[in-house]
Protein backbone atom coordinates (compact mmCIF):
# COMPACT_ATOMS: atom_id res chain seq x y z
CA UNK A 1 0.00 0.00 0.00
CA UNK A 2 0.96 3.67 -0.04
CA UNK A 3 0.19 6.66 2.15
CA UNK A 4 -0.15 9.91 0.28
CA UNK A 5 0.04 13.37 1.80
CA UNK A 6 -1.34 16.22 -0.21
CA UNK A 7 -0.92 19.92 0.61
CA UNK A 8 -2.76 22.20 0.89
CA UNK A 9 -6.01 20.46 1.74
CA UNK A 10 -7.98 23.48 0.63
CA UNK A 11 -7.42 27.00 -0.60
CA UNK A 12 -9.33 30.02 -1.82
CA UNK A 13 -7.49 31.92 -4.52
CA UNK A 14 -7.95 35.06 -6.56
CA UNK A 15 -8.47 34.70 -10.27
CA UNK A 16 -5.34 35.21 -12.31
CA UNK A 17 -3.06 33.75 -9.65
CA UNK A 18 -1.44 30.30 -9.52
CA UNK A 19 -1.48 27.56 -6.90
CA UNK A 20 0.99 24.73 -6.51
CA UNK A 21 -0.24 21.50 -4.93
CA UNK A 22 2.24 19.07 -3.42
CA UNK A 23 1.98 15.29 -3.27
CA UNK A 24 4.30 13.25 -1.04
CA UNK A 25 4.26 9.44 -0.96
CA UNK A 26 5.72 7.34 1.84
CA UNK A 27 7.40 4.93 -0.57
CA UNK A 28 8.93 4.97 -4.02
CA UNK A 29 6.33 4.51 -6.72
CA UNK A 30 6.60 4.23 -10.44
CA UNK A 31 3.32 5.76 -11.49
CA UNK A 32 1.93 9.05 -10.16
CA UNK A 33 -1.16 10.73 -11.52
CA UNK A 34 -3.10 13.95 -11.09
CA UNK A 35 -6.90 13.99 -11.30
CA UNK A 36 -9.54 16.69 -11.20
CA UNK A 37 -12.99 16.18 -9.69
CA UNK A 38 -15.37 18.95 -10.61
CA UNK A 39 -18.63 19.35 -8.69
CA UNK A 40 -21.05 16.58 -9.63
CA UNK A 41 -18.59 15.03 -12.05
CA UNK A 42 -16.39 11.98 -12.09
CA UNK A 43 -12.66 12.01 -11.62
CA UNK A 44 -10.89 13.13 -14.76
CA UNK A 45 -7.25 12.31 -15.34
CA UNK A 46 -5.18 15.42 -15.99
CA UNK A 47 -1.78 13.86 -16.54
CA UNK A 48 0.71 11.18 -15.62
CA UNK A 49 3.70 12.59 -13.74
CA UNK A 50 6.87 10.99 -15.11
CA UNK A 51 10.05 10.96 -13.09
CA UNK A 52 12.87 12.64 -14.96
CA UNK A 53 10.84 13.66 -17.98
CA UNK A 54 7.91 15.78 -18.98
CA UNK A 55 4.44 14.78 -17.81
CA UNK A 56 2.05 13.05 -20.18
CA UNK A 57 -1.14 15.08 -20.51
CA UNK A 58 -4.60 13.81 -21.36
CA UNK A 59 -6.73 15.35 -24.04
CA UNK A 60 -7.98 18.76 -23.00
CA UNK A 61 -5.14 19.49 -20.58
CA UNK A 62 -1.94 21.37 -21.43
CA UNK A 63 1.37 21.96 -19.74
CA UNK A 64 1.06 25.74 -19.75
CA UNK A 65 -2.10 25.55 -17.65
CA UNK A 66 -1.13 22.60 -15.45
CA UNK A 67 2.66 22.37 -15.16
CA UNK A 68 3.77 19.27 -13.27
CA UNK A 69 7.06 18.41 -11.65
CA UNK A 70 8.31 14.97 -10.55
CA UNK A 71 11.82 15.37 -9.21
CA UNK A 72 11.97 11.89 -7.65
CA UNK A 73 9.97 8.70 -7.06
CA UNK A 74 8.16 9.98 -3.94
CA UNK A 75 7.16 13.55 -4.77
CA UNK A 76 5.25 15.54 -7.37
CA UNK A 77 3.66 18.95 -7.73
CA UNK A 78 0.79 20.22 -9.83
CA UNK A 79 0.42 23.93 -10.51
CA UNK A 80 -2.90 25.41 -11.56
CA UNK A 81 -1.88 28.52 -13.49
CA UNK A 82 -3.70 31.75 -14.22
CA UNK A 83 -6.75 30.51 -12.38
CA UNK A 84 -10.36 31.29 -13.22
CA UNK A 85 -13.54 30.30 -11.36
CA UNK A 86 -13.90 27.35 -13.76
CA UNK A 87 -10.81 25.84 -12.15
CA UNK A 88 -12.65 25.49 -8.84
CA UNK A 89 -12.47 21.79 -8.21
CA UNK A 90 -10.91 19.06 -6.12
CA UNK A 91 -7.47 18.03 -7.32
CA UNK A 92 -6.27 14.55 -6.40
CA UNK A 93 -2.90 12.90 -6.47
CA UNK A 94 -2.86 9.16 -7.10
CA UNK A 95 -0.21 6.46 -7.25
CA UNK A 96 0.04 2.86 -8.35
CA UNK A 97 2.47 0.90 -6.27
CA UNK A 98 3.25 -2.09 -8.43
CA UNK A 99 2.95 -2.75 -12.12
CA UNK A 100 0.56 -0.68 -14.15
CA UNK A 101 -3.02 -1.83 -13.84
CA UNK A 102 -3.11 -2.64 -10.16
CA UNK A 103 -4.84 -0.78 -7.37
CA UNK A 104 -4.54 3.00 -7.23
CA UNK A 105 -4.11 4.91 -3.98
CA UNK A 106 -5.33 8.45 -3.53
CA UNK A 107 -4.44 11.48 -1.48
CA UNK A 108 -7.13 13.37 0.40
CA UNK A 109 -7.36 15.94 -2.34
CA UNK A 110 -7.04 19.69 -2.52
CA UNK A 111 -10.29 21.61 -2.61
CA UNK A 112 -9.65 24.74 -4.66
CA UNK A 113 -12.05 27.65 -4.87
CA UNK A 114 -11.25 30.49 -7.25
CA UNK A 115 -12.98 33.79 -6.62
Amino acid at each position, binding site marked *: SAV*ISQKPSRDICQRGTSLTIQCQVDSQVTMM*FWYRQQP*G*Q*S*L*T*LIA*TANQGSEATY*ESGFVIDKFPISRPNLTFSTLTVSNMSPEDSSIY*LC*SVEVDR*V*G*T*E*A*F*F*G*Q*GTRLTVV
Partner: protein
Amino acid sequence: AQSVSQHNHHVILSEAASLELGCNYSYGGTVNLFWYVQYPGQHLQLLLKYFSGDPLVKGIKGFEAEFIKSKFSFNLRKPSVQWSDTAEYFCAVNAPRGNNRLAFGKGNQVVVIP
Protein backbone atom coordinates in the same frame (compact mmCIF):
# COMPACT_ATOMS: atom_id res chain seq x y z
CA ALA B 1 -10.77 4.47 -24.58
CA GLN B 2 -12.98 2.90 -21.97
CA SER B 3 -15.90 4.74 -20.34
CA VAL B 4 -17.99 4.02 -17.25
CA SER B 5 -21.66 4.71 -16.54
CA GLN B 6 -23.22 4.92 -13.12
CA HIS B 7 -26.91 5.68 -12.78
CA ASN B 8 -29.03 7.14 -10.00
CA HIS B 9 -26.45 9.60 -8.77
CA HIS B 10 -28.30 10.25 -5.49
CA VAL B 11 -29.53 7.29 -3.46
CA ILE B 12 -31.31 7.68 -0.12
CA LEU B 13 -32.27 4.66 1.93
CA SER B 14 -32.92 3.57 5.47
CA GLU B 15 -30.69 1.46 7.64
CA ALA B 16 -31.04 -2.29 7.03
CA ALA B 17 -32.25 -1.73 3.49
CA SER B 18 -30.43 -3.44 0.65
CA LEU B 19 -28.24 -1.45 -1.69
CA GLU B 20 -27.38 -2.09 -5.31
CA LEU B 21 -25.42 0.36 -7.44
CA GLY B 22 -25.16 -0.23 -11.15
CA CYS B 23 -21.98 0.11 -13.15
CA ASN B 24 -21.63 -0.45 -16.87
CA TYR B 25 -18.49 0.03 -18.89
CA SER B 26 -17.74 0.22 -22.56
CA TYR B 27 -14.65 -1.63 -23.70
CA GLY B 28 -14.48 -4.84 -25.66
CA GLY B 29 -11.23 -6.22 -24.31
CA THR B 30 -9.89 -7.44 -21.01
CA VAL B 31 -10.60 -5.08 -18.12
CA ASN B 32 -9.79 -4.63 -14.46
CA LEU B 33 -12.75 -3.36 -12.43
CA PHE B 34 -12.85 -1.42 -9.19
CA TRP B 35 -15.23 0.13 -6.74
CA TYR B 36 -13.87 3.01 -4.68
CA VAL B 37 -15.58 4.68 -1.74
CA GLN B 38 -15.14 8.18 -0.36
CA TYR B 39 -16.51 8.72 3.12
CA PRO B 40 -17.26 12.34 4.12
CA GLY B 41 -14.02 14.23 4.63
CA GLN B 42 -11.83 11.26 3.76
CA HIS B 43 -9.80 10.18 0.77
CA LEU B 44 -10.86 7.72 -1.87
CA GLN B 45 -10.20 4.15 -0.85
CA LEU B 46 -10.60 0.82 -2.55
CA LEU B 47 -13.72 -1.15 -1.68
CA LEU B 48 -13.10 -4.14 -3.94
CA LYS B 49 -11.58 -5.09 -7.26
CA TYR B 50 -11.84 -7.70 -9.96
CA PHE B 51 -8.94 -8.80 -12.12
CA SER B 52 -9.80 -12.40 -12.99
CA GLY B 53 -11.26 -15.59 -11.55
CA ASP B 54 -14.52 -15.80 -9.61
CA PRO B 55 -16.79 -13.06 -10.98
CA LEU B 56 -18.39 -12.57 -7.57
CA VAL B 57 -15.99 -10.44 -5.58
CA LYS B 58 -16.25 -9.77 -1.87
CA GLY B 59 -14.83 -6.57 -0.47
CA ILE B 60 -14.59 -4.80 2.84
CA LYS B 61 -17.53 -3.90 5.10
CA GLY B 62 -19.87 -6.52 3.66
CA PHE B 63 -19.85 -5.22 0.10
CA GLU B 64 -19.73 -7.48 -2.92
CA ALA B 65 -19.80 -6.98 -6.68
CA GLU B 66 -20.53 -9.26 -9.58
CA PHE B 67 -18.80 -9.05 -12.92
CA ILE B 68 -21.12 -10.04 -15.76
CA LYS B 69 -19.02 -9.98 -18.90
CA SER B 70 -21.94 -10.37 -21.30
CA LYS B 71 -23.60 -7.30 -19.82
CA PHE B 72 -20.41 -5.25 -19.39
CA SER B 73 -21.50 -4.71 -15.82
CA PHE B 74 -19.95 -4.70 -12.36
CA ASN B 75 -22.77 -3.91 -9.94
CA LEU B 76 -22.08 -3.29 -6.28
CA ARG B 77 -24.33 -4.76 -3.58
CA LYS B 78 -24.76 -4.80 0.16
CA PRO B 79 -27.68 -6.71 1.68
CA SER B 80 -28.13 -4.49 4.74
CA VAL B 81 -26.68 -0.99 4.92
CA GLN B 82 -25.69 0.98 7.98
CA TRP B 83 -25.60 4.70 8.64
CA SER B 84 -21.80 4.51 8.35
CA ASP B 85 -22.16 3.48 4.69
CA THR B 86 -23.11 7.05 3.84
CA ALA B 87 -20.50 7.95 1.24
CA GLU B 88 -19.86 8.48 -2.43
CA TYR B 89 -19.16 5.35 -4.45
CA PHE B 90 -17.19 5.32 -7.69
CA CYS B 91 -16.89 2.55 -10.22
CA ALA B 92 -13.67 2.51 -12.23
CA VAL B 93 -12.19 0.42 -15.01
CA ASN B 94 -8.87 0.13 -16.73
CA ALA B 95 -7.80 -1.86 -19.71
CA PRO B 96 -4.42 -3.47 -19.07
CA ARG B 97 -3.85 -4.09 -22.76
CA GLY B 98 -5.37 -0.79 -23.83
CA ASN B 99 -4.38 2.66 -22.68
CA ASN B 100 -4.31 1.34 -19.11
CA ARG B 101 -5.57 4.53 -17.50
CA LEU B 102 -8.30 4.38 -14.90
CA ALA B 103 -11.67 5.66 -16.12
CA PHE B 104 -14.19 6.61 -13.43
CA GLY B 105 -17.93 6.82 -13.40
CA LYS B 106 -19.67 9.94 -12.08
CA GLY B 107 -20.27 8.34 -8.71
CA ASN B 108 -23.27 7.52 -6.55
CA GLN B 109 -23.95 9.70 -3.53
CA VAL B 110 -25.49 7.31 -1.00
CA VAL B 111 -27.18 8.62 2.13
CA VAL B 112 -28.32 6.13 4.75
CA ILE B 113 -30.92 7.43 7.17
CA PRO B 114 -30.74 6.03 10.71
